[in-house]
């Protein structure tokens, strides 16, 4: 079984589903990156060999630069685990053909095709937090907002994609980054090191990004008992669950706020991880 998404479909050509118009990825890209891409056009001959950016925030890299950044960002992510921008850069520079495979898998599902067509974004402007809070307890939407509150995070400030050349693949990467929180909410994973690594293991088997496997190297930074638990309890769960589940990038989460959480898990083919790294389910507490 292929490590990516449960069944081996291979790379079937959908032809060049290329999008020559610049994509509105700029809505959350920093003005600095916008300046950078404008500035590139005003350049002198020094970097005229560098291709033009294909979307706001795009920073085209030569193969050497890509390798350099891949190595540097991987090292930096290990040294300073708070550098979310380095984890992002590592993911992008090591993605390789993973994004192409994923994009094709997404295209094969009707729900996925809708995602690629509509290109929804997830941030505090696009999400109606109050509406989510008003949903019944056992729904996915309520679980998500409950998780945001419990872990004190916001859906904002995800680093925009910079180093993927094709705009559609860049969107797929951006979607992965933004839906990562939904995976947290689905299982109720907390945001500390151990649950994050367990989730990365799950993502590796479900989606296939090399960075997710590389990030397991950061388990060296865990305390030995935690590291042991990761490898003996959570990684086996992740391997089985991730490969059994359908590719989570094909899920149009924003259409499923009202769906019952347990029913959603059955539909997607996932089950809860071993205890110890998840937040308590509100419904269970309420029924006690």
């Amino acid at each position, binding site marked *: 079984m292929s490590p990516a998404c449960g069944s081996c479909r291979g790379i079937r050509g959908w032809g060049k589903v290329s999008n020559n118009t610049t994509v509105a990825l700029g809505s959350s890209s*920093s*003005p*600095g*990156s*916008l*300046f*950078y891409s*404008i*500035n590139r056009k*005003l*350049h*002198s001959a*020094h*970097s005229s060999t560098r291709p033009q950016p294909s979307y706001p925030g795009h*920073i085209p890299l*030569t193969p*050497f*630069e890509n390798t*350099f*950044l891949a190595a*540097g*960002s991987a090292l*930096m*992510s290990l040294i300073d*685990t*708070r*550098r*979310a*921008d*380095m*984890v992002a*850069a590592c993911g992008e520079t090591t993605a390789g053909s993973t994004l192409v495979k994923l994009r094709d898998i997404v295209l094969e599902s009707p729900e996925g095709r809708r995602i690629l067509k509509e290109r929804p974004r997830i941030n505090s402007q696009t999400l109606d937090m109050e509406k989510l809070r008003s949903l019944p307890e056992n729904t996915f939407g309520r679980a998500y907002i409950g998780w945001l509150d419990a*872990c*004190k*995070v*916001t859906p*904002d*400030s*995800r*680093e925009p994609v910079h180093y993927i050349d094709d705009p559609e693949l860049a969107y797929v990467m951006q979607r992965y980054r933004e839906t990562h929180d939904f995976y947290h909410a689905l299982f109720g994973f907390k*945001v*500390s*090191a151990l*649950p*994050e*690594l367990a989730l*990365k293991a799950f993502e590796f088997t479900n989606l296939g990004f090399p960075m997710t496997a590389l*990030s397991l190297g*950061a388990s060296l*930074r865990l305390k030995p008992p935690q590291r042991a638990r990761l490898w003996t309890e959570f990684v086996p769960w992740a391997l089985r669950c991730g490969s059994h589940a359908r590719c989570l990038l094909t899920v149009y989460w924003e259409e499923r706020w009202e769906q019952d959480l347990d029913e959603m898990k059955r539909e997607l083919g996932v089950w809860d991880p071993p205890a110890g790294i998840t937040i308590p389910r509100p419904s269970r507490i309420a029924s006690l």
Partner: protein
Amino acid sequence: MQQAARSIRVPRKLQRSTCRLFHNSSSLGSSNPSGRTTSFGFKTVPEESKESLVKGVFDSVASKYDLMNDASSLGVHRLWKDSLIDTLKPGRKGPLRCIDVAGGTGDIALRILDHARENYADRETTVEIVDINAQMLKEGFTRFKKTMYHNTPQVSFHEGNAQELPPSQFKDDSYDLYTITFGIRNCTSIPAVLREAYRVLKPGATFACLEFSKVNNPLLSTLYDQYSFTVIPLLGTILAGDRDSYQYLVESIRKFPSQPEFAQMIRDAGFSTGGDFDGGAWTDLWGGIASIHTGVKV
């Protein structure tokens, strides 16, 4: 691993303010009182906005400035600064009153004081560090706290603009040595800086500038360009999380006048320099990657 990153997911405020400044500058083009423009890296901006754009860059890079200097020059910047001090030999002819402009993190000031102390047992030489950017001065102050000069009259820190040093604080004809290291290319008007340098120096005193310059050897120039435009912005991304500031810094090097042009500007301000050749008005370091320009106020 994004566990703690979540709690500080907001991008660094400083970087955002830099980016906002970069973004605003493109809209500032429509409101341009004096009509004069200047370069900001490869971009052209209204003269009035360069100062705040540069401020944004240095606010952003201050905390990692020394680290990035070491990483991007592979430590060579230390050799260049040592070269400058060896050329000047501060303290050889008695204690000096020095002013180190754009001296933020204190690299040169520390070398001046150490050279005078170690070679000439001179504890009377003083250095006044002037910088337009408070963040850089703060880094310098912190560094000096680890040395023996902290809380002595030998070093002092002043926020000020190299183009307009307040005359009440920086009087005419009062300094024996004026240094500006890797700072003058960030100033909006180089002639204004040179005029101020001329004003505050005593007659017979020395002006010294260490700055990135033109590399004449074509092979070295190509390698240097490749390195600058490929590796340095990536190092900025990786080490400091800020590509744009370092992109500006490498671009600003290319916009700086060549050695003979800068030597002429120094003469135009009233200084007397050596001849227009390497070893005269300037000394090239590492093939011209950096260059030390000197002049004497007559």
